[in-house]
């Protein structure tokens, strides 16, 4: 059970790392918005599932606190990214400037 939890955490960490690497590699802002969502959705879900499994096995009772963080991230991530995307659109509209690559 703990082995499975550790593997889930490793998979989530890998997703978060790939997302952050995409943040560095992508060229423009609107491309850069996409990669970090890998870490914030599936990465967080996998790490939380690993944590839930580990503590349930450790205390030999269902520990469900992690679902709270999962629901919270599920609700807040789209809000922040929509706000950020609108802000970026507005700023690009107000001062159209060629964005430098990288």
């Amino acid at each position, binding site marked *: 059970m703990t*082995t499975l939890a*550790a*593997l889930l955490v490793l998979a989530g960490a890998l997703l978060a790392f790939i997302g952050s690497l995409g943040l560095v590699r992508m060229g423009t802002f609107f491309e850069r918005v996409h990669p970090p969502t890998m870490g914030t959705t599936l990465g967080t879900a996998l790490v939380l599932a690993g*944590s839930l499994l580990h503590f349930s096995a450790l205390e030999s009772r269902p520990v469900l606190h992690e679902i709270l963080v999962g629901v919270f991230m599920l609700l807040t991530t789209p*809000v922040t990214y929509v706000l950020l995307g609108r802000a*970026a659109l507005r700023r690009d509209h107000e001062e159209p400037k060629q964005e430098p690559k990288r």
Partner: protein
Amino acid sequence: MNPDFVSVTLGAAQLLLALAMACALYRLLRGPRAQDRVLALDTLYVNAMLLILSFGISAGSRAFFETALVIGMLGFVSTAAAAKFLLRGEVIE
């Protein structure tokens, strides 16, 4: 089951998350415009939350979970406030 395998796997996960935080920090310092920096700050917060969750798993302590929850909430509030500031020029109108 196998404590060696579990500790090595969790260590690798923590290393990956630290590298992810380094990538976000690079974009935070380098990012050509303000919206890139805000995006990098949000990613940094999420990665820090995941790192603290994995610390809690390897330590076997529930206390880390509350820290992760608080970091997640502060990350949302700070990113939303910064995006609102970029959008309007003020946070609360």
